């Protein structure tokens, strides 16, 4: 059962008032794989990730994490979130805490790791992501790329089973995108299971084992990166990719 999916979604539906954001989403994420969610803005990529982390309750359907149904209302949501790391588009670092405090907050307060141990682990991670000398800084003293790398370290510090990356380069200046994507490549090398919503098509093509094209609240097309990018079957996927190519993003 080693190939049992880490994350599994079945017929997930999510609406906000009258607008149906996720109509009927199925998704399987195998261990140690990278899944890229692509699609136009508003196609439901971010909502899908927020549902997977229980930041939003689904209206219908079910989600499993390592075979446990996490959409069961009896489940301890905090315990589920502890197993999933999230990195947000806008970093969402805590501005009143130093880099080190940002990173060690959850290990210390949620997992009860002693301070010295938490700081040592944080130090190693920061070092690895090229943030060695930044532990004592406040987030507003860092560049966007550095802030986003701190956010990744913060998510990794609790040793998550699954990492969700929500358009993590969308708020960055173009010259800072590379340093963040390098980190994701490294994590893939380590075998981290990841789901990423992205507009970086070139990157998705390079790094993803599975690509899902979301359109109007459903996964309209899915397959390997080669299948989806080189030989899309659906007319809407073709149109989306043509627009991206025209805009010079692929």
């Amino acid at each position, binding site marked *: 059962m080693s190939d049992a999916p880490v994350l599994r979604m079945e017929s997930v539906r999510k609406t906000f008032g009258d607008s149906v954001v996720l109509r009927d989403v199925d998704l399987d994420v195998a261990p140690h794989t990278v899944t890229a969610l692509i699609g136009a803005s508003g196609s439901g990529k971010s909502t899908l990730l927020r549902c997977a*982390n229980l*930041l939003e309750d689904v209206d219908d359907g079910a989600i499993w994490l390592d075979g446990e149904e996490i959409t069961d209302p009896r489940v301890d949501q*905090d*315990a589920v*979130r*502890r197993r*999933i*790391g*999230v990195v*947000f588009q*806008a*970093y*969402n*670092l*805590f*501005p*009143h805490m130093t880099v080190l405090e940002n990173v060690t*907050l*959850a290990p210390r*307060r*949620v*997992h009860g790791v002693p301070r010295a141990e938490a700081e040592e682990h944080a130090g190693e991670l920061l070092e690895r992501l090229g943030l060695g000398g930044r532990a004592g800084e*406040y*987030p*507003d003293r860092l560049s966007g790329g550095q*802030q986003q790398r701190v956010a990744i370290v*913060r*998510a990794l510090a*609790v040793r998550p089973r699954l990492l969700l990356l929500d358009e993590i380069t969308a708020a960055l200046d173009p010259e800072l995108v590379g340093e963040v994507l390098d980190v994701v490549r490294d994590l893939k090398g380590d075998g981290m299971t990841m789901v990423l919503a992205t507009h970086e098509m070139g990157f998705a093509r390079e790094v993803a084992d599975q690509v899902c094209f979301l359109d109007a609240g459903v996964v309209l097309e899915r397959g390997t990166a080669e299948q989806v990018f080189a030989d899309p079957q659906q007319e809407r996927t073709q149109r989306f990719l043509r627009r991206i190519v025209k805009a010079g993003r692929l």
Partner: protein
Amino acid sequence: MTVTEQESGPEGSDDEGDMPGAGGALYTPSPRRLERERHRRARARRATAIAALSTLVTGVVLYFVVVSAPGWPRTKETFFNGQYAREALPKVLEGLWLNVRLLLVCGVAVLVLGMLIAVARTLRGPVFFPLRALAAAYTDFFRGLPLIINLMIVVLGVPALRLQGVTVDPVWLGGTALTLTYSAYVAEVFRAGIESVHPSQRAAARSLGLSNRQALRYVVLPQAVRRQVPPLLNDLVSLQKDTGLVSIGGAIDAVRAADIIVGRSLNYTPYIVAGLVFVALTIPMTRFTDWVTARMDRRRAQGGTT
């Protein structure tokens, strides 16, 4: 050579103009720059001169308006009598010590109670409905109730109940009334602070596995409190002068000390003395508030708004 503040760029980039010739490239200010600076200096001098003149004129006009008023000699005698002022000052200062102590004790009590009420109002879940409703009712009631009426009810009403073991000391009762009213204000300040923290901060905390309570404790409240320091200090300044109202219960604070002399002499100078003493006490606090606010604005301007 002077480089005015407007000239150094908002980015705070290295400005060789500060030290001509210090860097590698030799920089000599152009005649255009020198001319501009001369003009700015001249304008600044003119502005200072105008301010000084208009202050002087305003002062003189006010002086003559007051002094030439028909009742001035009498007013001067009853409100600005040097002899009574000298007599009142030590007693007023003695009384002021009570006001200061009241401020310290009530200030702490208000911050604690205000925070509890604010947090109670943000609790979610049906279990907490009574607590939420109570907190909302409390703030509505005590923000609406005039402080002076609150004081009279507590200071005069509570002793009339003749409860066993409940103090009749007007200082304690007055302090209680002040705390009740000010907690309602401060609770609203805290609540506004809590609501001003962007939901994404809470989302980030929850995504790390922090419980709702931990997210509030470690992420939301520290940011909320920091942001609300200026309005909180403002409320404390206000509390500081309202401690004078405990005199209605007979506690001998600065106002009451003045009152006693006024009652004896029928001269109002002690009131002026007490008033000025309060102002003198408030000014440092107000300046401190301004300083803190300015410092925080500066920090925010540097780009700490993630």
